[in-house]
């Protein structure tokens, strides 16, 4: 009993440093990370483990003429060289993508992007594997590539996907949302219509840890243990069962500590499949970890949207409607990871935070000779592109109307009393008080004072810009009746066990890549049951140990798994009530809950703590009929709707008029993510996303030359912000809980990545107003800014 007595009778008496439940709490995962004891994919070493390396195509489009592996195979320490032909024999040369397309695991017929997988070497060590790549002789017949999405549908464009029977062009899909006729009528009647092209170039999530896998196939019992850098271990297990034909109960997917994901680690890449094939072929564990160039050139990129936007309004600044035509570059294979119904993800939330009369979008997806992907980099299934479009369009309208951009937004926000709000493209926003958040952001920024400073600086020829973005996210996919990925409903499970001594373990189906799940989910259980967070172990990332669920992306961990964990804890709490009643020899309905214990109504001194009840459940107390002798429960949570976190961001930039160099001087971010579980972790998520925003707005881009060469294939050219490019972030918050979520939480993981780029770009355009600049595309590098100042800006794609 000593262990139980260590805690106060009412453990709700947590203090500021050790909250019981929600509050700022140091992370449970940090003690291992600060000691260098994290366990990432490349840290895994199994007995007899071999190393794999991938030979990649040097060109973007070419017919494969021949591969000669003789010399590589003859090299000491090399055990196998696998080609597309070998995979054809196993029926594994092509794998299904997450968007009902197929992708080559190894090239059999034609190379379709630079960096595509051509052959796989398995050797005793990684140096030998790397050396052998040079000895594989591949002959290519080079074909003209399609590098410009704007030309992909030209009648004379080379057909990239001639592997698909009957295909005669590079068109993938047309998809639309909203009422086209209604929008046309609204636009026809509007006083003012502003149009502009808004480009979101191709960028890459580039987590600091690249992707990798260790496959360990046991030929005797036929079981595959696959360690992978995956954000979605359960979905991967099911897909591997479908692709490789290994029965699902014979596959265990383990996702160890992940060194950042940002959507890059959602897809199933050829390298993972090749590691499995390598292990089956050699009978030994095989590790494959990509290098940085492989990561940037072949794994999931993000964005690549060319958007023609139009916004309609009255003279006095009432926004009436929004329309857009989008050209979406999906690369050589349609491999975006998103709910099946939505080939453009959730882009149709492009109506933003405004009460519109009409909206219509049409998205056309095309193939090009570039790497596949598209939904990644904390984009919330393309809410990023949507927010960027609407916030650029609203600013364009403000310029046209000569209205302050903050004032224009305040005038057009959806009002608090309009929630739940049904927008014109099928979303039902759950809750919000946008004006309050906007005004707080303006207050922190000192908005009026900034405008005065800007006026003075302009008079002196200095270029200062103030940019605003107000975004509404849609996250937590999703209700499974609407949302699935390859037929798997987007729900998540949770299992909770309270051990006899009152310590608990909660098993979840989502996988942290740094978000701090081991802390946040323990705090949710702690809030519901009053058990201190340090007494709750969070188990994740191992399909043999956790319940099924779809994983972490689209900011869905807290909205979906957080809901599951709260509900499973409540289920335990209700069960505890029955057991407590039996222990106290009273009726359940006579008990009342306070954090951590059930007590008799009217007599708070008589009660049982969760720890006492747990011991009771496993002890000798006669339990009521139908109550199992444990304090365990499980649930699968299918969310009734998505959640809609939002925020008001203000950015201040200074531009060097002589060089075009942009400096982000201040950035104010006020977020509303509903109920706040751990404010420290929330702030960290926001800071990280804001830095992504600076990266995309100022420097990050994956460009290609006309011949198909990837110009962003290393960190020498794919630039990511350092501590010198970002300001000290200024954050604030409002709290508007989600009415339908079990704990009112809305998710925060991607808000800042989604919301910050338009604030920065709007600030740059604002700074350049004295030069007559009304538009500029990302990234706002010194050269692009200078070109805009000279009046000859060109789009990056």
């Amino acid at each position: 009993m000593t262990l139980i007595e260590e805690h106060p009778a009412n453990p709700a008496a947590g203090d500021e440093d050790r909250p019981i439940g929600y509050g700022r709490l140091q992370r449970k995962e940090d003690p291992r990370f600060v000691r260098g004891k994290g366990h990432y994919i490349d840290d895994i070493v199994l007995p007899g483990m071999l190393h794999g390396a991938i030979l990649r195509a040097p060109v973007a489009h070419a017919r494969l003429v021949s591969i000669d592996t003789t010399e590589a195979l003859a090299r000491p320490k090399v055990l196998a060289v696998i080609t597309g032909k070998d995979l054809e024999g196993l029926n594994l040369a092509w794998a299904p993508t997450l968007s009902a397309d197929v992708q080559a695991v190894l090239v059999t017929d034609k190379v379709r992007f630079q960096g595509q997988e051509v052959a796989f070497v398995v050797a005793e060590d990684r140096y030998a594997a790397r050396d052998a790549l040079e000895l594989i002789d591949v002959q290519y017949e080079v074909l003209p590539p399609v590098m410009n999405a704007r030309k992909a549908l030209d009648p004379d464009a080379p057909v990239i996907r001639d592997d698909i029977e009957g295909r005669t062009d590079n068109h993938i899909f047309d998809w639309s949302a909203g009422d086209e006729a209604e929008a046309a009528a609204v636009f026809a009647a509007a006083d003012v219509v502003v149009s502009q092209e808004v480009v979101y170039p191709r960028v890459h999530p580039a987590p600091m840890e690249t992707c990798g896998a260790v496959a360990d196939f046991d030929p005797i019992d036929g079981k595959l243990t696959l360690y992978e850098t995956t954000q979605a271990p359960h979905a991967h297990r099911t897909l591997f069962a479908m692709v490789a034909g290994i029965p699902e109960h014979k596959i265990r997917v383990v996702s160890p500590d992940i060194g950042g994901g940002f959507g890059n680690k959602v897809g199933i890449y050829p390298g993972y499949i090749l590691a499995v094939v390598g292990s089956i072929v050699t009978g030994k564990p095989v590790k494959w970890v990509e290098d940085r160039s492989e990561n940037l050139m072949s794994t999931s990129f993000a964005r690549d949207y060319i958007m023609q936007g139009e916004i309609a309004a009255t003279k006095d600044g009432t926004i009436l409607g929004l329309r857009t035509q989008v050209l979406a570059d999906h690369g050589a294979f349609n491999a975006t990871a998103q709910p099946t119904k939505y080939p453009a993800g959730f882009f149709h939330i492009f109506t933003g935070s405004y009460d519109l009369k009409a909206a219509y979008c049409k998205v056309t997806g095309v193939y090009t000779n570039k790497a596949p992907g598209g939904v990644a980099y904390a984009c919330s299934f393309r809410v990023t592109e949507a927010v960027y479009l609407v916030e650029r369009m609203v600013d364009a309208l403000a310029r046209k109307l000569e209205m302050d951009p903050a004032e224009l937004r305040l005038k057009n926000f959806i009002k608090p009393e309009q929630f739940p709000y049904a927008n014109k493209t099928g979303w039902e926003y759950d809750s919000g008080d946008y004006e309050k958040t906007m005004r707080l952001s303006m207050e922190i920024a000192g908005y009026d004072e900034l405008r005065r400073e800007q006026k003075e600086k302009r008079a002196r020829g200095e270029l200062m810009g103030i940019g605003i973005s107000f975004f509404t996210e849609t996250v937590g996919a999703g209700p499974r009746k609407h949302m699935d990925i390859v037929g798997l409903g987007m729900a998540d499970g949770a299992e909770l066990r309270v051990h006899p001594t009152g310590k608990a373990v909660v098993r979840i189906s989502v996988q942290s890549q740094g978000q701090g799940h081991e802390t946040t989910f323990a705090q949710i259980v702690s809030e519901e049951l009053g058990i201190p967070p340090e007494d709750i172990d969070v188990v994740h990332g191992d399909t043999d140990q956790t319940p099924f669920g779809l994983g972490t992306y689209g900011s869905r961990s807290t909205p979906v798994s957080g809901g599951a964990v709260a509900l499973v804890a409540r289920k335990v709490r209700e069960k505890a009530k029955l057991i407590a009643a039996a222990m106290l020899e009273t009726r359940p309905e006579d008990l009342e809950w306070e954090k951590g214990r059930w007590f008799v109504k009217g007599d708070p001194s008589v009660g049982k703590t969760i720890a006492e009840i747990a011991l009771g459940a496993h002890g000798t107390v006669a339990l009521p009929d139908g109550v199992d002798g444990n304090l365990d429960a499980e649930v699968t949570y299918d969310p009734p709707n998505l959640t809609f976190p939002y925020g008001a961001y203000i950015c201040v930039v200074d531009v060097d008029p002589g060089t075009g160099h942009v400096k982000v001087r201040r950035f104010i971010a006020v977020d509303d993510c509903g109920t706040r579980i751990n404010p420290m972790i929330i702030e960290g998520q926001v800071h990280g996303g804001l830095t992504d925003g600076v990266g995309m707005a100022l420097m990050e881009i994956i460009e290609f030359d006309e011949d198909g060469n990837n110009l962003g294939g290393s960190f020498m050219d794919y630039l990511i912000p350092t501590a010198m490019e970002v300001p000290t972030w200024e954050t604030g918050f409002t709290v508007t809980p989600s009415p339908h979520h079990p704990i009112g939480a809305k998710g925060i993981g991607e808000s800042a990545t989604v919301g910050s780029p338009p604030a920065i770009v709007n600030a740059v355009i604002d700074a350049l107003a004295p030069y007559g600049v009304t538009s500029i595309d990302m990234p706002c590098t010194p050269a692009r800014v200078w070109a805009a100042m000279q009046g000859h800006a060109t789009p990056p794609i």
Partner: protein
Amino acid sequence: MQVSMTMNGEEITREIEPRVLLVHFIRENLGLTGTHWGCDTSNCGTCVVLMDGQPVKSCTVLAAMADGHDVRTVEGLATAGVLDPIQQGFMEEHGLQCGFCTPGMMLTARALLDANPHPNDTEIREAISGQICRCTGYATIVRSVLWAAEHPAELVTIDEEVGA
């Protein structure tokens, strides 16, 4: 060839190929996997270790070049079960999320504090400007280093911290 060096205070000797990179030597020959790598071009700083007390990118140093030198990795930050204040600072101020860049960041911060016990915001940012963090947005790393500067004697035992 044979290389010998002092690794976290311990003399070690190993037989290696001359081309073995220091980061691979540390991770694979010595099994000290707290040092990570994130690029091939010495841009990301994930692989930073201290060589003779100075931060270096161990992906761009040959193990052979470290022969005869003193190398310190994240595993050598805590001594006798006592965390370095910089480690404590990263936990206090949420200076890490995924933990991948963290060892390199902490070692650079350690070297900075050794040379300049009271750095300001700009000096800290400059010191870590050769290292990329994709998660934190740097402000909390700066705060973590400031915390360590303010708590030079703050010593916490492993047992207390883990809550074992």
